[in-house]
């Protein structure tokens, strides 16, 4: 794989021909034991679309991804994934959704090689009673090539840098041969250069593999140039549309409060500093 370009400016999106909706929230609400997580969400995401989900901490961004994975049934309303109510999502459906969870510290001593970690992505697709075969190892190699990590197959995962581990986990999601890719804060905890590399990679996967992408980030400026539509969340869906429509001072102030600033270049400055 040619290494991604030094910057990630992709101002022009090829106008993808989007297919039928793959994900359909219809007045869906999701609750945790201690209170509501998402209220009355109505949102359709089409096959091949790239949606960025933004919002402050605790606004339900991760919950939205967990719901799409079928890990949280709606309390009211409905959520359809692949024409299937999310609470009935079977394992073979889940295997078609690649998921990059929020970066957690990988125990640097956990004995697992890059190959073994990516091969885990095949588990759902292979099925219960079978063992991974040559075809699966070829898929693993291909997924590692897609993220530019093919030279690290035999390396211990814990010995890699944060950005390299993130690439390996993206490869694990790709090894599922997913139709939908869910990414939760893919650039958190890695340095700026690597952030741009990872985002370039995601953009390329979207364009070349026509993956439907739902990317969650608290960093509005980082994903605004990439996503075709932004969904602004704070328990409710406050706005949905292209970045230009969503990132206005009036709309953002409803969610982030009056301290929000927008610059002439379209950058958004939020007083809500947090680090996970």
């Amino acid at each position, binding site marked *: 794989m040619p290494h991604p370009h030094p910057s990630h400016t992709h101002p022009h999106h090829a106008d993808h021909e989007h297919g039928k909706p793959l994900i359909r929230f219809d007045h869906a609400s999701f609750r945790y034991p201690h209170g509501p997580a998402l209220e009355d969400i109505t949102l359709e995401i089409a096959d091949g679309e790239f949606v960025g989900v933004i919002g402050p901490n605790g606004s339900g961004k991760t919950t939205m991804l967990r719901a799409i*994975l079928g890990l949280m049934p709606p309390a009211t309303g409905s959520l359809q994934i692949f024409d299937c109510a999310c609470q009935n999502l079977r394992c073979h459906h889940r295997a078609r959704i690649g998921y990059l969870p929020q970066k957690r510290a990988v125990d640097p001593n956990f004995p697992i090689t890059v190959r073994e970690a990516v*091969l885990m992505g095949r*588990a759902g697709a292979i099925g*219960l009673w079978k063992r991974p075969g040559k075809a699966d190892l070829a898929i693993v190699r291909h997924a590692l090539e897609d993220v530019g990590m093919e030279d690290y197959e035999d390396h211990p995962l814990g010995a890699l840098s944060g950005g390299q581990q993130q690439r390996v986990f993206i490869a694990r999601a790709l090894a*599922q041969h997913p139709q939908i890719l869910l990414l939760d804060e893919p650039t958190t905890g890695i340095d700026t250069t690597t952030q741009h590399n990872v985002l370039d990679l995601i953009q390329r996967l979207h364009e070349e593999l026509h993956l439907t992408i739902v990317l969650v980030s608290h960093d509005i400026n980082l994903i605004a140039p990439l996503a075709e539509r932004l969904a602004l969340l704070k328990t409710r869906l406050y706005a949905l549309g292209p970045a230009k429509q969503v990132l206005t001072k009036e709309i953002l102030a409803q969610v982030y409060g009056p301290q929000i600033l927008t610059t002439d270049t379209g950058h958004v400055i939020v007083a809500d500093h947090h680090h996970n």
Partner: protein
Amino acid sequence: MVDFLTLGFFQRSLMAAALTGGVCAVIGVFVVLRGLAFIGAGIAHAAFAGVALAYLVGGPPMPFAIAFGLGTAWITGLLEEQGRMKLDVSIGIFYTATMALAILFIGLMKTYNAEVYGYLFGSILSVTADELKLTAGLATVVVGLLALFAKEFFFLAFDQEMAEASGVPARRFFFLLLTLVALTIVVSLKTVGAILVFALLLIPAATAYQLTSSLRRMMAYSVAIGVLVSVAGVLLSFQFDLPAGPAIVLLATGVFFLAVAFSPKRAPKPALS
């Protein structure tokens, strides 16, 4: 096929040691990686309480031990899932409560029963042919299931939520794993005892963990270490007339510290492919 009945007590002890050490080392890999070590200790003590109750009421020890062991395994598993309480706290309570029950049951017995203590400290040198058969049968079941679902169990150990999200019925496998841990512990009670079985679950896997960065190799090393220290421990105990359980555990501990001292993970090599 080995005919267990024709074996002398010495061969039986060696066979029991190899089987127990091996099966504990296999499942121990998942116990160590999934962070279930403390649950293992809780299960061992609960199973011992079951044995004590069996002797008190005149019932068969194994079914009582299995009921107590499985009960504890499943309840602590549910508690971990719900996450309402820190797991070490809930298991700590279970651990001491079941030990208190065991002491209570023993106290209620009218006569001193030395056999009960055999389950606490183990009596590998007096393993009967039937007990050996039971151990061999269990080892086959546990190792067979773990081998059949190796990719699922490894995924579970690495990241359970991710496994669930990728289409592996991770929750069911988690409870299957707890069940296998409980069965392994119960069957090892007679050979190494409730206190020391924990060491056989932990030490070979923890030692292997120090030595490699690959899941498959960790499994292979763990089994080799588990079988070797168990057999060597029995041989030492014969040679020097020592109790077998402590000989095995102390030998394993020694190997563990050697592995820590010489672990390649302490001095990472430059990564080249």
